[in-house]
Protein backbone atom coordinates (compact mmCIF):
# COMPACT_ATOMS: atom_id res chain seq x y z
CA UNK A 1 0.00 0.00 0.00
CA UNK A 2 1.43 3.35 -1.01
CA UNK A 3 0.41 6.58 0.70
CA UNK A 4 1.07 10.19 -0.17
CA UNK A 5 0.28 12.97 2.22
CA UNK A 6 0.04 16.35 0.47
CA UNK A 7 -0.12 19.79 2.04
CA UNK A 8 -2.16 18.86 5.07
CA UNK A 9 -3.06 21.32 7.78
CA UNK A 10 -4.59 20.37 11.10
CA UNK A 11 -5.50 22.57 14.05
CA UNK A 12 -7.27 21.98 17.34
CA UNK A 13 -8.68 25.37 18.26
CA UNK A 14 -5.74 27.76 18.32
CA UNK A 15 -3.20 24.93 18.34
CA UNK A 16 -1.85 24.49 14.80
CA UNK A 17 -0.40 20.99 14.92
CA UNK A 18 0.30 20.19 11.26
CA UNK A 19 1.22 22.90 8.79
CA UNK A 20 1.59 22.17 5.08
CA UNK A 21 2.89 18.69 5.79
CA UNK A 22 4.05 16.47 2.94
CA UNK A 23 5.09 12.85 3.29
CA UNK A 24 5.51 9.83 1.02
CA UNK A 25 5.20 6.33 2.43
CA UNK A 26 6.73 3.80 0.03
CA UNK A 27 5.27 0.32 -0.30
CA UNK A 28 6.86 -2.54 1.60
CA UNK A 29 9.27 -0.38 3.64
CA UNK A 30 9.49 0.76 7.25
CA UNK A 31 8.94 4.52 7.39
CA UNK A 32 9.76 6.13 10.69
CA UNK A 33 8.53 9.54 11.84
CA UNK A 34 10.43 11.15 14.68
CA UNK A 35 9.90 14.37 16.54
CA UNK A 36 9.77 15.81 20.00
CA UNK A 37 6.92 15.16 22.42
CA UNK A 38 3.84 17.08 21.35
CA UNK A 39 5.15 17.65 17.83
CA UNK A 40 2.10 15.98 16.26
CA UNK A 41 3.43 12.51 15.44
CA UNK A 42 0.36 10.66 16.73
CA UNK A 43 -1.95 13.23 15.14
CA UNK A 44 -0.23 12.64 11.79
CA UNK A 45 -0.41 8.87 12.22
CA UNK A 46 -4.16 8.97 12.90
CA UNK A 47 -4.72 10.80 9.62
CA UNK A 48 -3.48 7.84 7.58
CA UNK A 49 -6.43 5.50 8.28
CA UNK A 50 -8.81 8.47 8.36
CA UNK A 51 -9.32 8.48 12.15
CA UNK A 52 -8.66 12.22 11.95
CA UNK A 53 -9.47 14.50 9.00
CA UNK A 54 -7.15 17.33 7.98
CA UNK A 55 -8.53 20.87 7.80
CA UNK A 56 -7.13 20.96 4.26
CA UNK A 57 -4.88 18.89 2.02
CA UNK A 58 -4.97 15.40 0.52
CA UNK A 59 -4.14 11.91 1.66
CA UNK A 60 -3.75 9.63 -1.36
CA UNK A 61 -3.98 5.92 -0.56
CA UNK A 62 -3.23 3.68 -3.55
CA UNK A 63 -4.16 6.51 -5.90
CA UNK A 64 -7.39 7.54 -4.13
CA UNK A 65 -7.83 10.66 -2.00
CA UNK A 66 -9.47 9.53 1.26
CA UNK A 67 -10.05 13.01 2.71
CA UNK A 68 -13.45 13.67 1.06
CA UNK A 69 -14.71 10.12 1.70
CA UNK A 70 -17.50 9.69 4.28
CA UNK A 71 -16.78 7.58 7.38
CA UNK A 72 -18.74 4.60 5.99
CA UNK A 73 -16.57 4.53 2.86
CA UNK A 74 -13.42 4.28 4.99
CA UNK A 75 -14.40 1.05 6.75
CA UNK A 76 -13.38 -1.28 3.89
CA UNK A 77 -10.05 0.57 3.62
CA UNK A 78 -9.44 0.26 7.35
CA UNK A 79 -9.67 -3.51 7.13
CA UNK A 80 -6.41 -3.31 5.16
CA UNK A 81 -4.75 -1.05 7.71
CA UNK A 82 -3.80 -2.07 11.25
CA UNK A 83 -3.10 0.47 13.97
CA UNK A 84 -1.04 -0.48 17.02
CA UNK A 85 -1.95 2.22 19.54
CA UNK A 86 0.42 3.39 22.22
CA UNK A 87 -1.72 1.89 24.96
CA UNK A 88 -2.46 -1.22 22.87
CA UNK A 89 -6.05 -0.26 22.06
CA UNK A 90 -7.43 -3.52 23.46
CA UNK A 91 -11.07 -3.61 24.58
CA UNK A 92 -10.85 -3.95 28.34
CA UNK A 93 -14.15 -5.82 28.57
CA UNK A 94 -12.92 -8.67 26.34
CA UNK A 95 -10.33 -11.37 27.02
CA UNK A 96 -7.04 -11.44 25.12
CA UNK A 97 -8.44 -14.19 22.91
CA UNK A 98 -11.66 -12.28 22.17
CA UNK A 99 -9.63 -9.17 21.39
CA UNK A 100 -7.46 -11.04 18.90
CA UNK A 101 -10.55 -12.58 17.29
CA UNK A 102 -12.52 -9.32 17.21
CA UNK A 103 -11.94 -8.46 13.56
CA UNK A 104 -12.52 -12.04 12.43
CA UNK A 105 -15.83 -12.27 14.32
CA UNK A 106 -17.22 -8.86 13.39
CA UNK A 107 -16.36 -9.18 9.69
CA UNK A 108 -17.16 -12.92 9.55
CA UNK A 109 -13.80 -13.70 8.02
CA UNK A 110 -13.55 -17.20 9.48
CA UNK A 111 -15.87 -20.00 10.60
CA UNK A 112 -16.58 -19.95 14.33
CA UNK A 113 -14.93 -23.30 14.95
CA UNK A 114 -11.71 -22.19 13.21
CA UNK A 115 -11.31 -18.98 15.19
CA UNK A 116 -9.69 -20.45 18.35
CA UNK A 117 -7.03 -22.09 16.17
CA UNK A 118 -6.31 -18.81 14.35
CA UNK A 119 -6.10 -16.96 17.67
CA UNK A 120 -3.64 -19.52 19.03
CA UNK A 121 -1.51 -19.22 15.88
CA UNK A 122 -1.38 -15.40 16.00
CA UNK A 123 -0.62 -15.35 19.72
CA UNK A 124 2.24 -17.79 19.20
CA UNK A 125 3.65 -15.50 16.48
CA UNK A 126 3.99 -12.80 19.14
CA UNK A 127 5.14 -15.30 21.78
CA UNK A 128 2.05 -15.13 23.96
CA UNK A 129 0.88 -18.73 23.82
CA UNK A 130 -1.73 -19.68 26.39
CA UNK A 131 -2.82 -16.12 27.23
CA UNK A 132 -6.24 -16.32 25.55
CA UNK A 133 -8.26 -16.13 28.74
CA UNK A 134 -6.33 -13.29 30.38
CA UNK A 135 -7.95 -9.85 30.68
CA UNK A 136 -6.04 -6.87 29.23
CA UNK A 137 -5.95 -5.18 32.63
CA UNK A 138 -4.01 -8.10 34.07
CA UNK A 139 -1.16 -8.16 31.54
CA UNK A 140 1.80 -5.81 31.07
CA UNK A 141 1.91 -2.92 28.60
CA UNK A 142 4.40 -4.81 26.45
CA UNK A 143 2.12 -7.84 26.32
CA UNK A 144 -0.86 -5.63 25.44
CA UNK A 145 1.08 -4.22 22.49
CA UNK A 146 1.95 -7.72 21.31
CA UNK A 147 -1.71 -8.79 21.61
CA UNK A 148 -2.59 -5.72 19.55
CA UNK A 149 -0.10 -6.86 16.89
CA UNK A 150 -1.59 -10.37 16.97
CA UNK A 151 -5.05 -8.86 16.47
CA UNK A 152 -3.78 -6.81 13.55
CA UNK A 153 -2.29 -9.88 11.88
CA UNK A 154 -5.65 -11.71 11.78
CA UNK A 155 -6.81 -9.26 9.10
CA UNK A 156 -3.69 -9.65 6.92
CA UNK A 157 -3.15 -5.89 6.65
CA UNK A 158 -1.28 -4.20 3.84
CA UNK A 159 -0.16 -1.42 6.19
CA UNK A 160 0.65 -1.44 9.90
CA UNK A 161 0.87 1.83 11.83
CA UNK A 162 2.79 1.79 15.12
CA UNK A 163 2.26 4.60 17.61
CA UNK A 164 5.27 4.69 19.95
CA UNK A 165 5.53 0.88 20.07
CA UNK A 166 8.38 0.83 22.58
CA UNK A 167 7.25 3.69 24.83
CA UNK A 168 7.34 2.75 28.47
CA UNK A 169 9.01 -0.61 27.88
CA UNK A 170 12.25 -1.86 29.42
CA UNK A 171 15.14 -2.40 26.95
CA UNK A 172 14.74 -6.20 26.58
CA UNK A 173 10.99 -5.85 25.94
CA UNK A 174 11.60 -2.95 23.54
CA UNK A 175 14.08 -5.10 21.65
CA UNK A 176 11.46 -7.89 21.45
CA UNK A 177 8.98 -5.49 19.91
CA UNK A 178 11.58 -4.15 17.48
CA UNK A 179 12.46 -7.69 16.38
CA UNK A 180 8.78 -8.45 15.90
CA UNK A 181 8.22 -5.33 13.78
CA UNK A 182 11.25 -6.18 11.63
CA UNK A 183 10.15 -9.79 11.20
CA UNK A 184 6.63 -8.75 10.19
CA UNK A 185 7.92 -6.24 7.70
CA UNK A 186 10.38 -8.61 6.07
CA UNK A 187 8.44 -11.89 6.20
CA UNK A 188 4.95 -10.55 5.49
CA UNK A 189 6.19 -7.72 3.24
CA UNK A 190 3.88 -5.31 5.05
CA UNK A 191 4.29 -1.55 4.67
CA UNK A 192 5.02 -0.15 8.13
CA UNK A 193 4.88 3.36 9.56
CA UNK A 194 6.23 3.96 13.01
CA UNK A 195 6.18 7.13 15.10
CA UNK A 196 8.68 7.14 17.89
CA UNK A 197 11.40 9.01 19.65
CA UNK A 198 13.31 5.84 20.54
CA UNK A 199 16.52 6.25 18.55
CA UNK A 200 17.59 2.65 19.07
CA UNK A 201 14.43 1.49 17.29
CA UNK A 202 14.86 4.16 14.63
CA UNK A 203 18.33 3.11 13.58
CA UNK A 204 17.55 -0.59 13.84
CA UNK A 205 14.32 -0.59 11.84
CA UNK A 206 13.98 2.40 9.55
CA UNK A 207 14.33 2.39 5.80
CA UNK A 208 13.58 6.14 5.90
CA UNK A 209 13.56 8.54 8.82
CA UNK A 210 11.33 11.63 8.63
CA UNK A 211 11.86 14.49 11.04
CA UNK A 212 8.64 16.22 12.14
CA UNK A 213 9.29 19.71 13.46
CA UNK A 214 6.86 22.61 13.94
CA UNK A 215 4.12 20.88 12.00
CA UNK A 216 5.94 19.74 8.89
CA UNK A 217 8.48 17.19 7.73
CA UNK A 218 11.81 19.00 7.48
CA UNK A 219 13.96 16.06 6.37
CA UNK A 220 13.42 12.60 4.97
CA UNK A 221 16.62 10.51 4.94
CA UNK A 222 17.96 6.97 5.24
CA UNK A 223 19.07 6.24 8.84
CA UNK A 224 22.82 6.71 8.36
CA UNK A 225 22.36 10.01 6.56
CA UNK A 226 19.90 11.08 9.24
CA UNK A 227 22.41 10.34 11.98
CA UNK A 228 25.12 12.31 10.17
CA UNK A 229 22.84 15.12 9.01
CA UNK A 230 24.19 18.63 9.36
CA UNK A 231 20.69 19.92 10.12
CA UNK A 232 20.96 21.48 13.57
CA UNK A 233 17.39 20.59 14.53
CA UNK A 234 18.07 16.92 13.83
CA UNK A 235 21.36 16.99 15.71
CA UNK A 236 19.72 18.67 18.71
CA UNK A 237 16.99 16.04 18.64
CA UNK A 238 19.49 13.15 18.47
CA UNK A 239 21.64 14.65 21.21
CA UNK A 240 18.60 15.25 23.46
CA UNK A 241 17.27 11.72 23.00
CA UNK A 242 20.64 10.10 23.69
CA UNK A 243 21.01 12.32 26.78
CA UNK A 244 17.53 11.31 28.02
CA UNK A 245 18.31 7.63 27.38
CA UNK A 246 21.59 7.93 29.29
CA UNK A 247 19.82 9.49 32.29
CA UNK A 248 17.34 6.58 32.29
CA UNK A 249 20.17 4.05 32.34
CA UNK A 250 21.95 5.86 35.20
Amino acid sequence: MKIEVKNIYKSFGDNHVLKDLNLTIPEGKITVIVGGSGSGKSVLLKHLPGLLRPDSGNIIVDGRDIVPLPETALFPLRQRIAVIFQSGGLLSSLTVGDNVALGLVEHRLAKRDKIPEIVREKLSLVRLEGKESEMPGNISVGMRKRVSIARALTLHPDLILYDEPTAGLDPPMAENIDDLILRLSRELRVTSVMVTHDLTSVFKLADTVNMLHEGCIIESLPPEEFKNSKNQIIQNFIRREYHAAAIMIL
Partner: protein
Amino acid sequence: MITFLKRIEAIFTDIFDSTGGMLLLLMQCLIEVKFVLSSARRVLRQMLEVGWNTLPLASMIGMFTGMITSLQTGVELKNLGLQQQIGAIVGLSLVREMGPVFTAFIVAARVGASWAAEIGAMSVSEEIDALRSLGIRPVRFLAMPRFVAAVTMQPLLTIYSIVVGIWGGALVSVNYLRVSQRVYYKRLFDALKTQDIILCLWKTLVFGAILSIVSCYSGLTTENGAEGVGRSTMRSVVISLSLFLVADYFITRFLG
Protein backbone atom coordinates in the same frame (compact mmCIF):
# COMPACT_ATOMS: atom_id res chain seq x y z
CA MET B 1 -20.63 41.67 30.39
CA ILE B 2 -18.92 40.31 27.28
CA THR B 3 -17.63 37.31 29.25
CA PHE B 4 -21.18 36.66 30.44
CA LEU B 5 -22.55 36.83 26.88
CA LYS B 6 -19.77 34.55 25.62
CA ARG B 7 -20.68 32.09 28.36
CA ILE B 8 -24.36 32.16 27.29
CA GLU B 9 -23.27 31.67 23.67
CA ALA B 10 -21.14 28.67 24.68
CA ILE B 11 -24.05 27.13 26.60
CA PHE B 12 -26.49 27.48 23.69
CA THR B 13 -23.90 26.21 21.19
CA ASP B 14 -23.38 23.17 23.40
CA ILE B 15 -27.13 22.59 23.65
CA PHE B 16 -27.66 22.78 19.88
CA ASP B 17 -24.55 20.67 19.17
CA SER B 18 -25.62 17.99 21.65
CA THR B 19 -29.22 17.95 20.43
CA GLY B 20 -28.09 17.53 16.84
CA GLY B 21 -25.55 14.89 17.83
CA MET B 22 -28.11 12.86 19.79
CA LEU B 23 -30.70 13.01 17.01
CA LEU B 24 -28.03 11.83 14.56
CA LEU B 25 -27.08 8.99 16.92
CA LEU B 26 -30.75 8.00 17.21
CA MET B 27 -31.05 7.82 13.41
CA GLN B 28 -27.85 5.80 13.17
CA CYS B 29 -29.11 3.34 15.82
CA LEU B 30 -32.39 2.92 13.94
CA ILE B 31 -30.44 2.20 10.73
CA GLU B 32 -28.17 -0.29 12.52
CA VAL B 33 -31.10 -2.15 14.13
CA LYS B 34 -31.19 -4.43 11.08
CA PHE B 35 -27.94 -5.96 12.38
CA VAL B 36 -29.50 -6.85 15.74
CA LEU B 37 -29.37 -10.60 15.07
CA SER B 38 -25.66 -10.56 14.24
CA SER B 39 -25.10 -8.63 17.48
CA ALA B 40 -27.41 -10.93 19.46
CA ARG B 41 -24.91 -11.73 22.23
CA ARG B 42 -24.16 -8.08 22.92
CA VAL B 43 -27.86 -7.18 22.83
CA LEU B 44 -28.73 -9.99 25.25
CA ARG B 45 -25.96 -8.95 27.62
CA GLN B 46 -27.33 -5.42 27.73
CA MET B 47 -30.90 -6.65 28.13
CA LEU B 48 -29.78 -8.60 31.19
CA GLU B 49 -28.11 -5.48 32.52
CA VAL B 50 -31.20 -3.29 32.04
CA GLY B 51 -33.77 -5.88 33.07
CA TRP B 52 -32.60 -8.70 35.27
CA ASN B 53 -29.84 -6.85 37.14
CA THR B 54 -32.15 -3.90 37.88
CA LEU B 55 -34.94 -6.11 39.25
CA PRO B 56 -33.93 -5.90 42.93
CA LEU B 57 -33.79 -2.09 42.85
CA ALA B 58 -36.98 -1.86 40.79
CA SER B 59 -38.71 -4.16 43.29
CA MET B 60 -37.74 -2.04 46.26
CA ILE B 61 -38.53 1.31 44.64
CA GLY B 62 -41.77 0.00 43.16
CA MET B 63 -43.00 -1.49 46.40
CA PHE B 64 -42.23 1.54 48.54
CA THR B 65 -43.67 3.91 45.96
CA GLY B 66 -46.94 1.99 46.12
CA MET B 67 -46.86 1.84 49.90
CA ILE B 68 -46.12 5.56 50.32
CA THR B 69 -48.78 6.56 47.79
CA SER B 70 -51.30 4.35 49.53
CA LEU B 71 -50.34 5.73 52.94
CA GLN B 72 -50.29 9.42 52.00
CA THR B 73 -53.52 9.47 50.03
CA GLY B 74 -55.24 6.81 52.12
CA VAL B 75 -55.06 8.84 55.32
CA GLU B 76 -56.69 11.84 53.63
CA LEU B 77 -59.30 9.67 51.92
CA LYS B 78 -60.14 8.07 55.25
CA ASN B 79 -60.84 11.51 56.75
CA LEU B 80 -63.38 12.02 53.96
CA GLY B 81 -64.74 8.49 54.24
CA LEU B 82 -63.51 7.65 50.74
CA GLN B 83 -60.74 5.16 51.57
CA GLN B 84 -62.43 2.52 49.42
CA GLN B 85 -61.15 4.44 46.37
CA ILE B 86 -57.52 3.89 47.36
CA GLY B 87 -57.04 1.06 44.82
CA ALA B 88 -58.01 3.34 41.95
CA ILE B 89 -55.76 6.17 43.14
CA VAL B 90 -52.70 3.98 43.66
CA GLY B 91 -53.24 2.11 40.39
CA LEU B 92 -53.79 5.20 38.26
CA SER B 93 -50.87 7.10 39.86
CA LEU B 94 -48.51 4.23 39.25
CA VAL B 95 -49.66 3.38 35.73
CA ARG B 96 -50.02 6.94 34.43
CA GLU B 97 -46.98 8.62 36.02
CA MET B 98 -44.97 7.20 38.86
CA GLY B 99 -44.33 3.77 37.39
CA PRO B 100 -42.83 4.92 34.06
CA VAL B 101 -41.05 7.97 35.49
CA PHE B 102 -39.56 6.40 38.64
CA THR B 103 -38.46 3.28 36.76
CA ALA B 104 -36.80 5.45 34.13
CA PHE B 105 -35.02 7.39 36.88
CA ILE B 106 -33.71 4.15 38.40
CA VAL B 107 -32.47 2.79 35.09
CA ALA B 108 -30.87 6.11 34.11
CA ALA B 109 -29.04 6.33 37.43
CA ARG B 110 -27.98 2.69 37.51
CA VAL B 111 -27.53 1.60 33.91
CA GLY B 112 -27.33 4.87 31.96
CA ALA B 113 -24.56 6.23 34.16
CA SER B 114 -22.65 2.96 33.87
CA TRP B 115 -22.96 3.00 30.07
CA ALA B 116 -21.76 6.59 29.85
CA ALA B 117 -18.80 5.79 32.10
CA GLU B 118 -17.88 2.58 30.27
CA ILE B 119 -18.07 4.08 26.79
CA GLY B 120 -16.42 7.29 28.03
CA ALA B 121 -13.50 5.30 29.41
CA MET B 122 -13.23 3.51 26.07
CA SER B 123 -13.23 6.87 24.31
CA VAL B 124 -10.35 8.33 26.32
CA SER B 125 -8.24 5.15 26.18
CA GLU B 126 -8.38 4.89 22.35
CA GLU B 127 -10.60 1.77 22.40
CA ILE B 128 -13.17 3.53 20.18
CA ASP B 129 -10.38 4.51 17.77
CA ALA B 130 -9.24 0.88 17.85
CA LEU B 131 -12.74 -0.25 16.83
CA ARG B 132 -12.83 2.29 14.01
CA SER B 133 -9.36 1.27 12.87
CA LEU B 134 -10.54 -2.37 12.67
CA GLY B 135 -13.36 -1.25 10.38
CA ILE B 136 -15.97 -1.82 13.13
CA ARG B 137 -18.70 0.81 13.42
CA PRO B 138 -18.87 2.05 17.05
CA VAL B 139 -22.61 2.74 16.72
CA ARG B 140 -23.31 -0.84 15.63
CA PHE B 141 -20.96 -2.34 18.22
CA LEU B 142 -21.73 -0.17 21.25
CA ALA B 143 -24.79 2.04 20.84
CA MET B 144 -27.29 -0.11 18.92
CA PRO B 145 -27.24 -3.05 21.37
CA ARG B 146 -27.88 -0.68 24.25
CA PHE B 147 -30.64 1.12 22.37
CA VAL B 148 -32.44 -2.15 21.56
CA ALA B 149 -31.96 -3.43 25.12
CA ALA B 150 -33.33 -0.25 26.71
CA VAL B 151 -36.33 0.04 24.39
CA THR B 152 -37.32 -3.62 24.90
CA MET B 153 -36.60 -3.98 28.61
CA GLN B 154 -37.82 -0.60 29.87
CA PRO B 155 -41.52 -1.47 29.28
CA LEU B 156 -41.12 -4.89 30.91
CA LEU B 157 -39.27 -3.51 33.90
CA THR B 158 -41.85 -0.75 34.31
CA ILE B 159 -44.75 -3.21 34.22
CA TYR B 160 -43.00 -5.30 36.85
CA SER B 161 -42.36 -2.24 39.00
CA ILE B 162 -46.00 -1.14 38.71
CA VAL B 163 -47.29 -4.61 39.68
CA VAL B 164 -45.01 -4.66 42.72
CA GLY B 165 -46.12 -1.12 43.58
CA ILE B 166 -49.79 -2.03 43.35
CA TRP B 167 -49.15 -5.00 45.62
CA GLY B 168 -47.29 -2.72 48.05
CA GLY B 169 -50.24 -0.35 48.02
CA ALA B 170 -52.57 -3.25 48.75
CA LEU B 171 -50.42 -4.23 51.71
CA VAL B 172 -50.87 -0.79 53.31
CA SER B 173 -54.54 -0.57 52.36
CA VAL B 174 -55.41 -3.91 53.94
CA ASN B 175 -53.31 -3.59 57.09
CA TYR B 176 -53.52 0.12 57.84
CA LEU B 177 -56.57 1.54 56.09
CA ARG B 178 -58.71 -1.57 56.63
CA VAL B 179 -59.75 -1.75 52.97
CA SER B 180 -60.18 -5.34 51.81
CA GLN B 181 -58.11 -6.71 48.91
CA ARG B 182 -61.29 -7.43 46.97
CA VAL B 183 -62.41 -3.79 47.16
CA TYR B 184 -58.88 -2.49 46.50
CA TYR B 185 -58.43 -4.49 43.28
CA LYS B 186 -62.04 -3.98 42.12
CA ARG B 187 -61.71 -0.21 42.33
CA LEU B 188 -58.32 -0.41 40.62
CA PHE B 189 -59.57 -2.42 37.63
CA ASP B 190 -62.75 -0.37 37.37
CA ALA B 191 -60.72 2.84 37.07
CA LEU B 192 -57.91 1.61 34.86
CA LYS B 193 -58.55 2.08 31.13
CA THR B 194 -56.77 0.58 28.14
CA GLN B 195 -55.78 4.11 27.18
CA ASP B 196 -53.85 4.44 30.48
CA ILE B 197 -51.85 1.29 29.76
CA ILE B 198 -51.10 2.35 26.18
CA LEU B 199 -49.93 5.76 27.40
CA CYS B 200 -47.74 4.07 30.00
CA LEU B 201 -46.13 1.84 27.38
CA TRP B 202 -45.50 4.78 25.03
CA LYS B 203 -43.74 6.60 27.82
CA THR B 204 -41.55 3.61 28.64
CA LEU B 205 -40.52 3.22 24.97
CA VAL B 206 -39.60 6.90 24.71
CA PHE B 207 -37.80 6.87 28.06
CA GLY B 208 -35.82 3.79 27.03
CA ALA B 209 -34.75 5.49 23.80
CA ILE B 210 -33.81 8.69 25.67
CA LEU B 211 -31.68 7.00 28.31
CA SER B 212 -29.77 4.84 25.80
CA ILE B 213 -29.11 7.64 23.31
CA VAL B 214 -28.15 10.18 25.96
CA SER B 215 -25.79 7.83 27.81
CA CYS B 216 -24.16 6.49 24.62
CA TYR B 217 -23.76 10.01 23.20
CA SER B 218 -22.23 11.25 26.45
CA GLY B 219 -19.79 8.34 26.41
CA LEU B 220 -18.84 8.64 22.75
CA THR B 221 -18.10 12.37 23.07
CA THR B 222 -16.00 12.07 26.22
CA GLU B 223 -12.65 13.88 26.25
CA ASN B 224 -9.97 14.82 28.76
CA GLY B 225 -9.27 11.62 30.64
CA ALA B 226 -10.76 10.62 33.97
CA GLU B 227 -12.21 14.06 34.63
CA GLY B 228 -14.01 13.89 31.31
CA VAL B 229 -15.43 10.46 32.12
CA GLY B 230 -16.80 11.78 35.41
CA ARG B 231 -18.34 14.77 33.69
CA SER B 232 -19.92 12.62 30.97
CA THR B 233 -21.44 10.31 33.55
CA MET B 234 -22.97 13.20 35.43
CA ARG B 235 -24.19 14.84 32.21
CA SER B 236 -25.80 11.60 31.08
CA VAL B 237 -27.89 11.33 34.27
CA VAL B 238 -28.84 15.02 34.44
CA ILE B 239 -29.84 15.24 30.77
CA SER B 240 -31.73 11.93 30.88
CA LEU B 241 -33.74 12.91 33.95
CA SER B 242 -34.57 16.32 32.49
CA LEU B 243 -35.64 14.87 29.14
CA PHE B 244 -37.81 12.23 30.85
CA LEU B 245 -39.90 14.97 32.47
CA VAL B 246 -40.11 17.04 29.28
CA ALA B 247 -41.13 13.99 27.24
CA ASP B 248 -43.57 12.94 29.98
CA TYR B 249 -45.38 16.27 29.74
CA PHE B 250 -45.68 16.22 25.94
CA ILE B 251 -46.74 12.57 25.74
CA THR B 252 -49.40 13.13 28.41
CA ARG B 253 -50.52 16.36 26.76
CA PHE B 254 -50.86 15.05 23.20
CA LEU B 255 -51.53 11.33 23.63
CA GLY B 256 -53.35 11.36 26.93
